[in-house]
């Protein structure tokens, strides 16, 4: 892989990667459900953009396919499914603010710093060109995780889950120039099936607790079996 003389593309790539990180933050703090879905779609598009630029810069034709797959799945199909589900569940106007926004965002910042520290040994390897992106991808994964912990709304938790997948894909692209094709297809298949199942679960959850606030799913405790 030769990245020499790619200064302009490099800079463009870093800007795109930074925007991915920014989208992770905006996803974390989004109060309106529909805007959160839009933020997620943008994140998917940006990840596809990063992939395309790496493909151009490194002359890696198989990455074009990965980019197209990501664009179709993460930026179009999954946001579309979520949009439809939200409309059918009549949650279009659902607003739910973040618990202690300043603290949560600070935690996310700490996660970014932690990611940079953690991937230092990887950075020391020769592939210096994309090293920042590996750190960013880990940060996106961890921010997705944080989102799933902090938010109680089922749809937003799913967005967190999918955003983790975005981070993982970015990691695969930036650290290793993409996984083998069979693995990439398998992962995409799993993500799609997971999305369909999540959709079914939204209805099951609403049927059982009349809301999608998973904080109210609290029947299972260690003393289960008591009252029967």
């Amino acid at each position, binding site marked *: 892989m030769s990245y020499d003389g790619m200064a302009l593309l490099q800079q463009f790539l870093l800007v795109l990667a930074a925007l991915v990180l920014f989208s992770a933050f905006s996803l974390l703090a989004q109060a309106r459900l529909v805007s959160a879905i839009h933020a997620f779609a943008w994140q998917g598009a940006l990840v596809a953009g990063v992939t395309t630029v790496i493909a151009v810069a490194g002359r890696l034709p198989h990455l074009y396919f990965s980019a197209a797959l990501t664009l179709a799945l993460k930026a179009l199909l999954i946001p579309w499914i979520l949009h439809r589900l939200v409309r059918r569940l009549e949650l279009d106007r659902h607003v739910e603010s973040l618990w202690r926004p300043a603290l949560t965002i600070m935690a996310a910042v700490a996660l970014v710093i932690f990611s940079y520290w*953690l*991937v230092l*040994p*990887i950075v*020391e*390897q*020769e592939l210096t060109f994309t090293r920042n992106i590996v750190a960013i991808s*880990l940060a996106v*994964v961890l921010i997705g*995780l944080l989102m*799933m912990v902090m938010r109680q709304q*089922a749809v937003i*938790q799913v967005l967190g*889950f999918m955003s*983790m*997948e975005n981070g*993982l894909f970015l*990691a*695969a692209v930036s*650290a*290793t*120039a993409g*996984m*083998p094709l*069979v*693995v990439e297809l*398998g*992962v995409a*298949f*799993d993500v799609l*099936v*997971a999305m369909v*199942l*999540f959709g*079914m*679960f939204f209805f*099951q*959850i609403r*049927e*059982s*607790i009349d809301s999608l606030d*998973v904080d109210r*799913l*609290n*029947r*299972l405790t*260690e*003393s*289960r*079996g*008591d009252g*029967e």
Partner: protein
Amino acid sequence: MNALLVTLLAPVCGALALGLIRPLRWAGWLNVAVSAVSFAAALVLAWTVAASGEVVGLTFRVDAFNVYLLVLTAFVGLTTSIFSRPYMRYVCEAGMTGERGMRIYHAMYQAFMFTMLLALSTDNLGVLWVAVEGATLATVLLVSLYRTPEAVEAAWKYFVLCGVGIALALFGTVLTYFAAQHVIADAEAGLLWSTLYRHAGQLEPAVMRIAFVFLLVGYGTKVGLVPMHQWLPDAHSEGPTPMSAVLSGLLLNVALYTVVRLKMLVDGSLAATATPQLAGYLLMGFGLVSFLTAGLFLHRQRDIKRMFSYSSIEHMGLMTFAFGIGGPLATFGALLHMLVHSFTKSAIFVTVGHAAHIAGTQSIDHIRGLIRTQPSVGWALLIGVAAIAGFPPFGVFTSEFLLLTATMQSQPWLTVALLTGLAVAFAGLFRHIHPMVYGAAPEGQQPVQANLLPVAVHLGLVLWLGLSIPAFLARWLDLATELITGTRLL
């Protein structure tokens, strides 16, 4: 090779067919038939592997280590399907699920079997990840099959926790692939376990160290290691009983198998560094904490299936600990323990299904006098619990004895912790079991139609393994031990 393909394709075809066919009477039988075909093919495969050492091709790789797990998986799949046929009919007649639910159940049962067998036989770490994630996807609808609020909650928890865990494992897989790319020229081969294992010594230790932490946390979630175990008791207690049997008997094993394979890579990579034992220590730590915590939690349980799922966590912890110790004796013991634990635990869950049917509840406080009402179920439960608690002459005693000996050899002061843990777990199980099987039966408690054939076969095998391990099996386990540790025990 053909035998392997039949083993894998039978469940795929079965899942498709079972998703489509209408009459429920046939579905149960077809489920049994498909599992039987898969098991027969697995036996042929085992025969081939025994003759030739390993079967390789099409990015599959079956050697001494995974072939015995393949046979075990197909076998438990078969016996559980025999149990599930009448049991699920009762579930359906009791109105707990409808015709659509039954179709989902049967199709997903086979899909789950496929993912398990694929995860065991593939050589590609990426495909392995896809299969383990697929196992979550296949079982999550089964956990929520009864559609009670509790079942939906358990399924959501299972889905989210395992989804997150497995995502971290994918990050670890990416890092492994990254380390491989600097060593292995052919990019496509960079995720093949056998290729990685050959080059393990050259993999960058700093990267592999981080990768293993991610992989251990990720797959450890599926093993049910504390503190990532939260999903396990819920999923086991709220799903249909045959599902609990295969989750406990098979899924946890496959996840542990994955961790062991990855440990082999990391050990090779770290061999020349200052901390060659890092992976082993991590496994020992997680394993011991899971073992002790789950033993304590056994005492607090009020739901019979939750109790036995904590017992599963305890045993998985023990096995993880043993693989962490390493060395031929501990590894041999852990492999044997995987085998006997699967047999015993799936037999127990089948019996628990009947017991809960008799009492009409899963609440420990309300299951009483099983021996009075239906001696076969009561005794089966008692014998099963005696076996899992490690009473001689059952196989669990043998493997736990080996593990204790190995611990005494390498980490003598940890023997105390192990013995304490075993005693705590033993007490926890028996204080609950005693009133359930003995004592007076509540009025009007009726025996049910119970199919105890799978239980008898499983417990019989465990007894056999406790009295004398057949020579071919001992050789098999020994070959697997050699594969993992590099030296033979026998």
